[in-house]
C-alpha cells in the first residue's frame, strides 16, 4: 500500500548493496581506515558513485540536472552507505548541490551545480548546524563585496573539498554564499573519534564570498539543507545499526562456547532480540520521516527530529551491544565493530544532539498542548 518500498526503490537498494559490497567491502574496512593516505574514502568509489550511479543528483529535480527521485530514495541510498561506513565526500557534495538548487532560483550557478552533480568538483557546506548559530558572520566591504569571518568547527569533508558553500549570519538573518577562493581558506583536519569520515575546521578571515539566492529565502534554504543532512545521517545510522545486528547474529549463531552456539543462550539471544527491536523501530521511523518530509516540506522539523533522536540511540546501543556479543574479538582493532561504534557515537552528536532534539520536541508538545 503506502508504506513499503516500491519495486524501483527495492532495485535501488539492491544496486547500492551489491555495488558497495564490491567496492567498499567490510573485510578491508579496517585496513582502508588505517591507510591514511587514501583514508577513509576511495577516489574511484566516489567517482563511480557520482558518474555511474549519479547519486549527487538523486533527489534533485530533473530540470536542474538531477534524477528527480525523492527523499525516500535518498534514505535508501544513505542507509546502504551507512551499512559500509562509507565516509567519502558524497554527503558533503550532495548537500552543497542541495543548497545551490534550493537557493539559486535564478540558475546563476548552473555550471558549478553541473560539476557537483558529475562529481567533478567536491563540495562542502560550512555553517551547517542544527539549532545552533552558524559561527560565521557575513558583511559587505566598502566596495559592496561580501566577506565572511568566523570558524566553522565541524565541516564534512571540510579539508579537501574543492568548493565551499556556507550559511552565515548577515546582520539581517542568515544568507547562503559561495566562497570565492576556497584554496585560500585556512583549513585543518580534525582528529575525531569516528575514523571513517573526515571532517575539517575552516577558519574564515574576511574571506570574499558571492551570495547564492535571495536574503528572503535563505532561512528556508537552511532549514531544508539541515533537514536533508539530518535525514542522511539518520539513514546512515539505520544502515549501520542493521549491519551491526547482522554481525552480532552471525557471530552468535556460529561461535560456540560450553559446547553450544552462544546464540542459544538467552543472555545473547535476548540481547540480539533487543537490538532487533531497536533496528526495526529506527528503520520504520527513519523511513517515515523521509516520506513525511517528502510529502510536506513545511512540517519537516518534528518528524526528522524524532527520527534523528531515535536512530542515534538505536545505532549507539546496537553497536555497543555488538561489541559485547563479540566479546574479546569485538574489542580488537582488527574487527570493524569499533569503527561502527565510533561512527555511532560521533553521529549521535552530529546535526543536533539527542538532548537538543528532545528539548525541541518537548517545546513542540507543550506549544501544541
Amino acid at each position: 500500500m503506502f508504506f513499503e518500498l516500491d519495486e524501483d526503490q527495492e532495485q535501488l537498494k539492491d544496486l547500492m548493496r551489491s555495488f558497495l559490497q564490491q567496492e567498499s567491502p567490510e573485510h578491508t574496512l579496517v585496513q582502508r581506515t588505517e591507510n591514511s593516505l587514501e583514508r577513509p574514502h576511495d577516489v574511484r568509489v566516489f567517482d563511480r558513485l557520482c558518474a555511474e550511479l549519479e547519486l549527487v543528483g538523486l533527489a534533485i529535480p530533473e530540470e536542474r540536472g538531477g534524477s528527480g527521485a525523492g527523499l525516500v530514495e535518498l534514505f535508501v541510498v544513505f542507509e546502504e552507505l551507512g551499512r559500509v561506513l562509507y565516509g567519502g565526500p558524497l554527503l558533503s557534495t550532495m548537500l552543497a548541490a542541495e543548497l545551490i538548487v534550493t537557493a539559486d532560483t535564478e540558475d546563476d550557478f548552473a555550471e558549478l551545480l553541473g560539476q557537483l552533480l558529475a562529481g567533478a568538483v567536491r563540495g562542502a557546506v560550512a555553517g551547517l548546524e542544527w539549532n545552533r548559530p552558524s559561527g560565521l558572520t557575513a558583511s559587505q566591504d566598502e566596495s559592496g563585496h561580501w566577506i565572511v569571518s568566523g570558524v566553522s568547527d565541524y565541516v564534512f569533508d571540510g579539508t579537501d573539498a574543492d568548493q565551499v558553500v556556507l550559511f552565515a549570519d548577515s546582520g539581517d538573518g542568515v544568507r547562503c554564499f559561495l566562497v570565492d577562493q576556497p584554496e585560500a581558506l585556512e583549513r585543518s583536519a580534525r582528529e575525531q573519534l569516528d575514523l571513517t569520515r573526515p571532517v575539517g575546521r575552516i577558519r574564515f578571515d574576511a574571506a570574499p564570498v558571492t551570495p547564492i539566492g535571495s536574503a528572503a529565502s535563505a532561512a528556508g534554504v537552511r532549514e531544508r539543507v539541515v533537514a536533508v543532512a539530518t535525514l542522511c545521517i539518520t539513514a546512515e545510522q539505520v544502515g549501520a545499526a542493521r549491519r551491526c545486528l547482522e554481525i552480532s547474529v552471525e557471530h552468535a549463531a556460529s561461535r560456540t562456547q560450553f559446547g553450544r552456539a552462544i546464540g542459544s543462550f538467552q543472555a545473547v539471544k535476548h540481547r540480539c532480540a533487543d537490538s532487533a527491536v531497536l533496528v526495526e523501530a529506527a528503520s520504520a521511523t527513519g523511513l517515515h520521516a523521509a516520506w513525511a518530509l517528502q510529502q510536506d516540506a513545511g512540517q519537516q522539523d518534528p518528524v526528522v527530529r524524532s527520527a534523528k533522536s531515535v536512530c542515534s540511540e538505536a545505532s549507539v546501543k546496537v553497536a555497543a551491544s555488538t561489541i559485547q556479543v563479540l566479546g574479546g574479538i569485538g574489542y580488537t582493532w582488527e574487527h570493524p565493530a569499533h569503527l561502527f561504534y565510533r561512527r555511532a557515537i560521533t553521529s549521535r552528536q552530529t546535526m543536533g544532539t539527542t538532548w537538543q532534539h528532545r528539548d525541541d520536541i518537548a517545546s513542540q508538545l507543550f506549544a501544541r498542548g
Partner: protein
Amino acid sequence: MTSERAASPYPDSAEEFRQRVQEFLSAQLPAGWNGLGSIPTEEQVVFIDAWRATLHRNNLLAVSWPESYGGAGLTPLDQLVLAEEFTKAGVPQGGLNDNFSIQMLGSTLLKFGTEDQKQYYLPRILSKDDVWCQGFSEPEAGSDLAGVRTRAHRDGDEWVIEGQKTWTSYGHLATHIFVLCRTDPDAVRHRGLSLLLVKIDQPGVTLRPLKTLTGEEEFNEVFFDGARCAVESIVGEVNDGWRMAMTLLGFERGEAAATLPMKFGQDLERLVQLAIRYDKAGDDTVRQRLARSAEGVEQMRSMGMRAVSQWVNGHEIGAESSIHKLFWSEWLQETTELAMDIMGIDGIIPTGDGLQGMSFPAAEAGTPNTSGAWADYFLRARAATIYAGSSEIQRNIIGERILGLPKDAR
C-alpha cells in the same frame, strides 16, 4: 511510496469509506460523546451492550467475515479505516467477549470448522446466543502452553474433561469456552492435544473469579470436573488441537498495529496536559522523558504503518508482532512511570476518577486525566510484559524466528 498526497497515505476509495464511517458514528453516538474511557465502568457495560446491538443491526460486527455468514466482508483496508475511526471516537468494535467469539473462534471455524459448525455457531455468536471465552492457560502451563494438563477422554459420544484453566478473561460473561486439552495421554507436549467446544452451564464446570493486583475481577479460573461435550464439538481433527490453537491465537487484529499507537498517542496528549497542570513544562528531566515518550509513539506509529501496509497487501503479520508487543509494553511502563513522577506525592495518594472499564492494553479515549486514572494505569502496566506472551517469550520468538538464532538448550 513517494507519490501519495500529503494529507493521507490512503487511496481515495478508503477515504470515501472513512467518510461513511464518520457519518455512521456521528449518527449513532449520543450527543457529547467523549469516548468510552469517560464513562464509569458500570455504565460502560450497558453502553457496550447497546453499541454491540447497533453494530449488529448495521452489519458491522464481524467485519472480516464473509457476508454469507453474516459478516461485513470488508477488505483489510476498510477494516483498518473502520478501526481507526472507532478508535478516534473511543468506541469498541464489539462486545467484551467478541475478541474471543468473533475474532478468534469465529475466524478459526471459518477456516477449519465443518459446514455444520459454521452454520450452527456463527449466527449464534453474532446474535449473542453464544458468548465465548478462552480456555488455554493453566496454572502449570503459562509461557509453556504445550504443557497443558487438562485432559479429555472419550465416553461414548462425548468427551469428558478434567482439569483446570486460568486467566480466562470475561469467563463470567460467557456461555461457552473453547478448551485446549490433552486427548492422547501418551503423546508428548503439543502432540496429542485437541480443541474442544464446551458449554459452561453444566455441572462439571465451575468458575472462580481471579482478582488482579489492581483488585479487579476480569479474569477467572475454570475448573473442569467431568465436564462434557459432544464428540463433534471439536475444532479440526482429534489431536490436531495445537495447530488449531496456534491458528486461533494468530488471528490478531491486523489493524491493532495502527490503532494501538493511536491510543498511546492519546495517552501522550493527556500526559502533556498533566505535566502542564503540575507545572513541569519547564522541568528539564520531565521534558527529556516526555520527548522520549513522544518518540516512542512516533516509533510505534511508523512500525504500525509498515505492518498494516503489509497486512492490507495480504501478508500476515508474523513474528514482527513480537517486536511491537515488546516495544509497546515497555513504552507503557516507562510512560506511566513518568506520569507517576510528574504527580509526585499525588501519584501515591491518587484521587479523582480511576481508569474506567477494563480497557486493556491501552486506555480508551476520554479517560480522565486524574491521578486516580494514572495510578491505575501504572499498576496495570505491570501486566503488559507478562500477558499474551511474556517479554521473555517475545525475545525468544524474535531471536529464533526473526533472527534465526538456535533454540534454547532443553
